[in-house]
């Protein structure tokens, strides 16, 4: 790059050349791994299922017209993703609050590290571990000793929720922790000095300032949960059916690639709308935060 700059002679042009060269890997990355696959997806989605399965070229919207047949998994997924994201947020906030504002020094470091520790083990193995815990020889057996009778935990919507909250909680805790960590403590002190109770302080000071973190956490959890496939299979016993499972079945059982592509395309479009909405809201939050701190 330095050689190119010297050879170019013109400093500004060289700088622009360097910038373009530096941007090249990123541009290639987006082109190869984002744009190209999306193009393939859209092209396939207007195709037809070949008579023996797979894809046959065509230009038709029949796949999109058939999308209502996957309405049930869509509603399932939206409902459960929203519910579990909410549970994650409710569980994560007190954890993040404690980590950010109540503990100090080494303890803080250790506790924050502990939030991340589960990521050191494979997602699959952790989920399998829950299968054993929730299976008939695990927690239900202990419950029946205590006298709760025959309770089935594995392969219930409860098990799916537990798996999701357990696996995705760190993704909610960390952004909230970061936003609370950066929070200027004098705001809280001022609020208390001015006579606000703890609940009023939480509602009027802490929550609004933590809002960008909560919002990031919601997006970080909601989007992957929408695409979740493994947890419903392993902990739901195939009885809780997500969009991700519908997609996998379309490719690996029905071998209907065009319909699978149409479903995936609509799913991706939905997620893009969601992320755009998130960006708009978070920008407004940041601006509001800046204005209020000026006052």
């Amino acid at each position: 790059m330095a050689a190119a700059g010297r050879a170019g002679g013109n400093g500004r042009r060289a700088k622009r050349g360097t910038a373009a060269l530096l941007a090249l890997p990123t541009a290639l990355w987006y082109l190869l791994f984002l744009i190209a696959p999306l193009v393939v997806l859209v092209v396939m989605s207007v195709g037809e299922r070949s008579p023996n399965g797979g894809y046959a070229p065509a230009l038709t919207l029949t796949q999109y017209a058939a999308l209502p047949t996957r309405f049930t998994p869509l509603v399932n997924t939206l409902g459960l993703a929203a519910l579990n994201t909410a549970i994650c947020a409710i569980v994560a906030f007190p954890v993040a609050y404690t980590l950010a504002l109540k503990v100090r020094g080494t303890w803080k470091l250790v506790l924050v590290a502990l939030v991340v520790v589960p990521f050191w083990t494979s997602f699959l193995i952790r989920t399998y571990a829950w299968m054993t815990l929730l299976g008939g020889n695990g927690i239900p057996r202990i419950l029946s000793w205590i006298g709760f009778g025959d309770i089935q935990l594995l392969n219930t919507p409860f098990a799916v929720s537990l798996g999701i909250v357990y696996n995705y909680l760190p993704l909610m805790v960390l952004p909230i922790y970061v936003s609370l960590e950066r929070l200027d403590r004098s705001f809280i002190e001022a609020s208390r000095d001015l006579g606000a109770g703890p609940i009023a302080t939480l509602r009027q000071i802490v929550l609004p300032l933590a809002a960008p973190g909560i919002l990031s956490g919601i997006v970080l959890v909601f989007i992957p949960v929408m695409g979740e496939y493994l947890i419903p299979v392993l902990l739901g016993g195939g009885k809780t059916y997500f969009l991700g499972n519908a997609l996998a079945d379309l490719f690996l059982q029905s071998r209907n690639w065009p319909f699978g592509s149409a479903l995936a395309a609509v799913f991706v479009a939905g997620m893009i709308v969601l992320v755009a909405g998130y960006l708009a809201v978070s920008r407004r939050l940041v601006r509001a935060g800046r204005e209020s701190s000026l006052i």
Partner: protein
Amino acid sequence: MSKRPTPKGLDPADITALAIERRMTRRGFLVGTGAGLGALALAGCAPSAASAPPATTAPSAAAPSGGASPSASASASAALGDSMTLATWPNYHDPAVLEDFTSATGVAINVQVFGSTEEMEAKIRAGNSGIDVVVPSNYAIEGWVKDTLIEPLDYAKLPDFKKEDWNPLFMDQAFDKGNVVSIPKNWGTTGIAFWSSKVSPALTSWKEFFQAAGSTYKGKALIVDHQISSFGSAAVAMGYSLNTIDPTEMAAVEQMLTALKPQLFAISSDVQPPLRAKDTWLSVAWTGDGVQVVRDNPDDAKYVVASDGGELWIDSYTVAADAPHRDAAYAFLDYITQPEQAARETMFCLFPHANDKATAMVDPAVKDNPVIYPAPDSLTKLEYAVNATYNSPERAEAWARIKASA
């Protein structure tokens, strides 16, 4: 979706007992990196079996007869290349057999393992998979021929193949008349596994299975996550064909399974863990699950072929149309379809083999095990799933609606 369960209960003693003397020695034929890669591939496949000491329980198979002589193989190895790729099921091949092929020819076998025929199809349909030999189930073959995913076999390149050695029940079948594209390997059934201590009276038919699953044994039954096996068995229970694609019949089966679903423990192809944990008391299962669970619990576990019908399946060797190592692929088929090798494979994977001569060489403990080799009478009502069943969008949608239902 894994149709071939991993032999979780297979202890080293079993393997030692089942292992037979390696027919060829490795001397002089370890060809550089090729053999090293092969060893790696095999190590990944099933290390415990690969390291089992050779026993001598099957002297007939150990006799150094048949097959190409090592020196001939050595001269041929240059033309065969140094590797090939085999797309197959988990724990389906005796690593020692593959290792011996590598020793004899210098061709290392890269084993790719799949949990279902559909997954194999996704890979080879995408093209440029690098796969040479594929081992699909019967129902996929016609469609693969139509879309030229596999090629007509060049029998001139299989000089040691003898059609008369094979069981007529599995040769020249509707899915491949004249065995133009496929040579059978192992076969099996879709049957009923249950604990006799928990399920009484014993189950004998699909009709009884599905009735019991929805009444006496609520929350204790599992059906596999496979349209052909589960929807098909339910169809048999209602008196229809395993292969029904009749709209009225399919609607009836769909209604029955949708009503049954909330009473099921799971719709999952991971049959063995809940069965062994006794979370499930009765289960749709494949031969491999039955063999392993019954072997480990001989007094309590049962695996039965339903008396009212059900699925008979067979996996076959095929050569991918875009096979990059065609000569090596044929050399491998010529080797692996020999009765001696087929017998070794059978004793390793514990599925019955379609080659009668191989069956005759198999250890009596395997041959006379009714779970592995069921009585021929019990098979008469079984059906092969046909390509139309595998391929029917209506049946796939019905299965998807059942799975999506609350």
